[in-house]
């Protein structure tokens, strides 16, 4: 039986109050939003904060507001994101990503901010305490070695957020607030390619808001590889946002890969290659190969690692064909097993 460790619970009602408590607690404090990832982790002792600072009563974290683009409160549940008409119609990639996070129950609890800050995952890490103790723990928690690649100097746990690749492709920024002040960060800068130190968020900072630029002229999409159409974490995420000229020539494009590294990242070469071109089958195939060369899946999650690398071009192809305007509904049904 795995039970939660003892902890203190604070439920502030404003961001300022939450930031003040967080600053006061230092490394012993942790923020909790939906808790769908943190609470199971606490039961297995991956995280054992002395104090949980709940964001659920904090006002001003649940807004969906228009501005120069769209502003989304970090406290919106993923279900609320999915139900947002603005997201569904203008930021399709984010909508598709949010709709594919875990299962309906978890989306009802889990938040957008929580998914962006999701702890990295690994077969050697996401286990119960006994199991981890039996192998002498791992680098990410209490141990010294990365069992995925014992020669590795850094932790290879996988970034498993679906919303981040989609938001990076869409050019999103995030707002981080602390007792000392606040800053805006382009979303890619929130992440480090390190399974342990995977966020650049400082321990006293609260992610409060996601800011999306105007969507006019842009199309976006997100394709997720997982074994089952519900529940599973991504084994590969392909997000693309593109702006094309009336003749179909790509003017701007961002192709982002998720779940094949410790961070979601822009596949720069593939993205640059596509600019100025029309999305012909040949161009798509070449972009797929370019993107695949950047994917470094490790044998620390579900399904065969070589196969996961091998299918990257296919998934990049699905995404680019959807951007091109192909009818991908049948393929979507086969991969996601739901309409998206």
């Amino acid at each position: 039986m795995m039970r939660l460790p003892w902890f203190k619970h604070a439920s502030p009602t404003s961001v300022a109050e939450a930031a003040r408590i967080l600053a006061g607690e230092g490394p012993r404090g942790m923020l909790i939003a939906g808790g769908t990832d943190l609470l199971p982790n606490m039961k297995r002792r991956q995280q054992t904060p002395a104090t949980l600072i709940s964001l659920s009563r904090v006002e001003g974290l649940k807004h969906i507001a228009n501005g120069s683009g769209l502003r989304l409160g970090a406290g919106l549940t993923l279900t609320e994101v999915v139900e947002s008409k603005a997201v569904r119609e203008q930021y399709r990639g984010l909508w598709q990503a949010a709709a594919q996070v875990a299962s309906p129950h978890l989306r009802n609890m889990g938040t957008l901010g929580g998914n962006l800050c999701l702890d990295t995952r690994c077969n050697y890490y996401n286990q119960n305490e006994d199991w981890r103790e039996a192998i002498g723990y791992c680098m990410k928690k209490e141990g010294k070695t990365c069992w995925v690649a014992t020669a590795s100097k850094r932790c290879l746990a996988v970034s498993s957020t679906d919303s981040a690749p989609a938001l990076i492709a869409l050019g999103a920024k995030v707002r981080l607030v602390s007792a000392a002040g606040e800053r805006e960060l382009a979303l890619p800068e929130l992440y480090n390619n390190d399974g342990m130190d995977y966020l650049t968020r400082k321990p006293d900072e609260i992610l409060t808001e996601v800011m999306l630029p105007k969507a006019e002229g842009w199309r976006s999409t997100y394709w997720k590889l997982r074994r089952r159409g519900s529940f599973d974490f991504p084994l590969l995420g392909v997000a693309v946002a593109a702006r094309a000229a009336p003749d179909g020539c790509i003017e701007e494009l961002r192709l982002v890969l998720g779940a094949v590294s410790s961070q979601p990242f822009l596949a720069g070469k593939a993205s640059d290659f596509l600019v100025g071109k029309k999305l012909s089958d040949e161009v798509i195939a070449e972009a797929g190969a370019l993107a695949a060369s950047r994917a470094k899946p490790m044998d620390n999650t579900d399904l065969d690692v070589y196969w996961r690398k091998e299918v990257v071009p296919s998934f990049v192809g699905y995404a680019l064909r959807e951007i091109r305007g192909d009818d991908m509904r049948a393929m979507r049904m086969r991969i996601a097993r739901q309409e998206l």
Partner: protein
Amino acid sequence: MLTPLTYELPRFKFDACRVFTNKPACGPKRGHGTPQPRFGQEVQLDKIAEKLKLDPADLRLNMVTKANTLTASWLKIGSNGLAECIRQVVAGSGWKQKHGKLPQGRGVGIACSSYMTGAGVSIYWNKMPHTGVQLSLDRSGQVTVFCGATEVGQGSDDVLAAVVAETLGISTKEVRCVTGDTGITPIDLGSYSSRVTLMMGNAALQAAGRARDMLVTAAAEQLEVAPADIVLSRGRVFAAGDASKTMSFAEAVVYAETKYGTLGTVGSYTPPKPPGKFKAAGVGPSPAYSYSACVVEVEVDEHTGWINVPKIWVAHDIGRALNPTLARGQVIGGIYMGLGEALMEEQVFRRLPPKLSNALVHKIPSLLEYKSITSLEMPEVEVFLVEDPDPNCPFGAKEVGQGPLLPVMPAVANAVFDAVGVRIDEVPITPEKILRALHLKREGKSPRVGPERFPEVPYVEPTFVIPPGEGGDGTESKPPQRKAAKAAERAAS
């Protein structure tokens, strides 16, 4: 050992061994030892059909076993609806228009199976009944039935009430079931071997039949008709052919209690002795066998190996469905579990790095990472219940709890071959294995992924039994070649 039940086999050899491993302890799961040989048998038949250029459904249909026969291994087959099962799934799925004719990447596969309706030999080595039922009738007309059988969601309480109600001509809502409590109820050996409907049902039939006899006798006296003319139906007890001579069920109970004192009956059930008398004859005998046939349609993506199952057709020879809704639920549940086995369920072990211990450990010791299919993976299932009542069963009802799972895995493997021409000779059939086999095919190599060899096993000397068709008597005998060798030995010395 259930292998010879489906297709005519003049002779049958079975080697087996138990292997000690350091893996987690195993336990029975739906089908209990049958899925593994059945997978091999049904995939092998598909390969034979391919080689002989025969339709795999016709190949099977032309060699199904017959009702009321003995297999080469001395298992007694009673009713047998396999041929009808094959015909129904072939017709229902449009097999003839689909097999070998769907566009590349889509295919259909067929497989059949059979399963026991209760183990003919008790798991406890004694001669006592396998199940017992007690019935008590009180003067309000309330019937209470006691049995150790445990309702685990499969609907055994419903079967128990239905058998009693049908025999007494009352509604199931007049029957109260007291089950599962070993302190109150007579014994039932448990929910395994798909035995509860048959064994508990037969015991309930006996108990209810005895109660019925008392009610009939008392009512006949009262209504002044011959007991043979008494009919119990819809809560009434009346004379056949004379509607004026009638009373309610509760009145009949009152008359019977007046005549006999407090009413209570018992019933029990012991399966018939298996026809085989040799040492291994206790494995596989059953009072009745269910039959299933299944057609699975798959879509396989040739670039990724991604597999999708849009639809499954399954026909199950249940003898008689006592509750068709629950029976269909059991069939669909079996398909669900079978499809999980076919596509993803797996215990994966990995070797720890040498630095740690080099030991094999469970890769996924949690249900979060142990993948079984969800409702989104579950295809539409079309169920055909084939009803051919078996005389050994209560109202002819055979098992449905385990049989329908068995053909799913080989049918998926056979469908993958029909879709893209590769053989995946093991489960789970994952996209990675399909893609690996597709690469082999493109390279001109044998397009097959599966175990490369079977381990060397020092099997024990087999028991030799002459099959029924060759004049055997069901006992062990000396194999002819061994006799010849012994004679040669004697001659040499």
